[in-house]
């Protein structure tokens, strides 16, 4: 289990969970604020407009009832106002042109005879129709005022005032309902944001944990994240990447183990032979010569292994010579000449057939290596009186090289692994034949680095067949 150091743990306020939750809360808070202000503002405005219309209408009716009077006094105003129907207004004042109150609906504390210096009344006495309304402390307070004219002369003014707590109570009820709903929504949002942010960032946390586990060397760890969203997709990609990493790591370990073993074997043999020479008294020269020859053979084998390893290392690091167009046919013929000697020694019949010029983009050495390794293997594993066929042709824009034998073939279980480094079907026989276990790996890596492919299969009549395909090149010069 990887231990995450404190340095890696970011503070909570910097975490994605916090940011996500906070942004979610801010958005909802803005919506709730709007919900608690805009409807109230609109409602308030509607009430203002409604009151303006109704009060100005009421004042107009009263002004009309006073029209026709050339001069206003307490008696004629009282008579005119008695005709006006109940308006429901809280207070009505009628003044003369100087602002002296001639009529007041207030039951107690009437202002008759006083001079009303209300701003609305003064505006009306200056010739303006006025309305104002305010809402605060639980009531709508509305004022309306209009001048009374006689032959275009201002002879007085009518002032109306309304103190309305009922509509205010409705508005406050609306406000408190909205507030209650908002509080409920806010609580639900808080809980939801907590849950959602955990759900979302939980996946990311799992992924992060998995990355840290793998980083610390636990290549077998996988991120278990369900779902089909982008995070789940990232987790799947991560798992695939880790699978490849696991395979690569396993291959590396196996390679190191195999390489160590392969190198250790000849070294051990050399050690044994030299010890024998050194610790055997009166050893005869013939035996010594035999031992030294064996030491030489093992040293040569060690050298071959080292050279092959170096080749593979260069291929792994993409250290490749600049390729040119190579005509495979002459290279094939050269290899056939070399291999025919070995074939004769082994009692193997080696035949080959070419169908003309086949050009590939590689180096001559690479092509030579590929053909030689495959042919050498086929000859060694055909057995006495075996036959090896080598065929070269161009087909479907590919240069196809086929090397087949009539030997024992390759067990089906070993076919998928035949190109692995140091993999041998018959270890003892391979060593005896002087193989390093790297020949087919070199063939595979060399061909694939040049955009080609290699496959192996068993022949129906017995034996193995290797098929190498290179992309064919047209024209150019011979390498």
């Amino acid at each position, binding site marked *: 289990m990887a231990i995450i150091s404190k340095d890696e743990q970011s503070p909570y306020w910097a975490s994605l969970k916090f940011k996500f939750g906070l942004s979610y809360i801010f958005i909802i808070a803005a919506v709730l604020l709007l919900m608690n202000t805009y409807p109230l503002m609109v409602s308030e405005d509607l009430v203002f407009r409604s009151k303006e219309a109704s009060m100005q209408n009421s004042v107009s009716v009263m002004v009309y009832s006073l029209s026709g009077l050339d001069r206003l006094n307490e008696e004629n105003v009282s008579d005119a106002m008695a005709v006006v129907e109940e308006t429901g*207004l*809280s*207070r009505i004042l009628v003044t003369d*042109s*100087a*602002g*002296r*109150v001639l009529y007041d*609906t*207030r*039951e*107690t*504390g009437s*202002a008759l*005879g*006083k*001079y*009303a*210096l*209300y*701003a*609305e*009344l*003064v*505006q009306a*006495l*200056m010739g303006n129709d*006025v309305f*104002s309304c*305010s809402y605060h*402390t639980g*009531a709508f*307070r509305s*004022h309306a005022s209009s001048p009374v004219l006689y032959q275009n002369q*201002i002879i007085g003014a009518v002032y109306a*005032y*309304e*103190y309305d*707590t009922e509509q205010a109570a409705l508005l406050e009820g609306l406000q408190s309902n909205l507030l209650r709903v908002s509080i409920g929504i806010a609580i639900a949002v808080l809980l939801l944001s907590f849950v959602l942010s955990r759900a979302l960032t939980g996946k990311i946390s799992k992924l992060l944990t998995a990355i840290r586990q793998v980083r610390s060397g636990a290549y077998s760890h996988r991120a278990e994240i369900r779902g089909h969203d982008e995070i789940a997709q990232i987790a799947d990609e991560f798992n695939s990447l880790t699978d490849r990493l696991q395979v690569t790591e396993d291959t590396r370990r196996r390679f190191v183990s195999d390489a160590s073993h392969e190198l250790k074997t000849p070294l051990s043999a050399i050690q044994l032979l030299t010890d024998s020479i050194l610790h055997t008294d009166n050893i005869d020269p013939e035996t010594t010569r035999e031992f030294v020859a064996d030491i030489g053979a093992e040293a040569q084998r060690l050298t071959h292994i080292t050279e092959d390893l170096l080749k593979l290392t260069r291929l792994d690091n993409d250290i490749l010579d600049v390729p040119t167009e190579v005509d495979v046919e002459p290279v094939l013929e050269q290899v056939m000449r070399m291999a025919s000697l070995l074939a004769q020694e082994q009692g193997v019949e080696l035949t080959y057939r070419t169908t003309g010029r086949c050009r590939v983009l590689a180096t001559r050495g690479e092509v030579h290596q590929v053909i030689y390794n495959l042919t050498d293997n086929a000859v060694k594993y055909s057995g006495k009186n075996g036959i090896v066929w080598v065929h070269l042709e161009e087909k479907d824009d590919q240069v196809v090289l086929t090397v087949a034998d009539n030997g024992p073939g390759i067990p089906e279980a070993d076919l998928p692994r035949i190109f692995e480094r140091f993999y041998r079907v018959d270890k003892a026989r391979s060593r005896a034949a002087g193989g390093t276990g790297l020949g087919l790996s070199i063939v595979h890596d060399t061909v694939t680095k040049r955009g080609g492919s290699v496959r192996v299969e068993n022949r129906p009549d017995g034996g193995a067949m290797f098929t190498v395909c290179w992309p064919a090149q047209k024209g150019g010069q011979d390498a």
Partner: protein
Amino acid sequence: MKRWIVCILCIVLSVAIGYTFVGPGENREGTEYEVFFRERDLSDTHSGDALRPELVKLSDESGSQERMEQLLERLLQGPEDETLSSVIPAGTTLLSVRHNGVLATVDLSNQYSALSGVELTLADYAITQTLTQLPEVMLVKVTVRGKEIPYRSGRILSQRDILFSPKEDVVSNVEAMLYFLDEEGTFIPTMETLNLYEGDTQVSAVVRALENGPQSKELLPVIPPDFRVRAVWQVENECYVNFSSKQLESLENESDYDTMCQGLEKSLSSLETVEKVNFLIDGQFA
């Protein structure tokens, strides 16, 4: 950060010390008085008054005559606040001001006689409000070159003539005996002082108080919750209470109606102006 806090604290302390020693409205140099001008934009007062004062300082060493003259001169100069305007016609000069007992007589130049209607009212009462601040002045008379202004001859101006806009919603109070019920159904009287808002009558205030229910948790209301009297009014010494038949149908028991009527009658009758209470249903006598 600490320096800023210390600076702010020093400033606050200095202001507090200065305020303590100097005080509002008073300093070692004199006393502040109000000089009344007119709101320049009457539509912007938000149901306030047309006149609004500006503060001026007068030396405490000045006599009453000198103070009257200084206040009037300041009034004639016009306001410093741009949101105010002068009520006195431009070019008006103070010819004399004298007081005899509590009456101050102000004599102004000819320009003052150009005023009429509400503008004259505003000017007269700007002068009245300004001068009646002085303890020795309670009444004001304004003349033009020693003569009365013809269309309001003989009028003495007083601060009590003015109707200013009320600052409170409550315009008066009335005491009434409200009848509620105890657990046994017995009527219990409670004396309460009821606020009267603009447009309220005494009888409507009593009915509203009964609808709101008792303040004491030991008492029960006579009017059921959510039940509203349709209308109540008074003609001379008779009170009329009108119910809605639809609302009455919501009463659970017939006895609730009787209890409600009894409670209303007893409570309304406690008002001095009410001798009889009549009940109506949809405008018809019950």
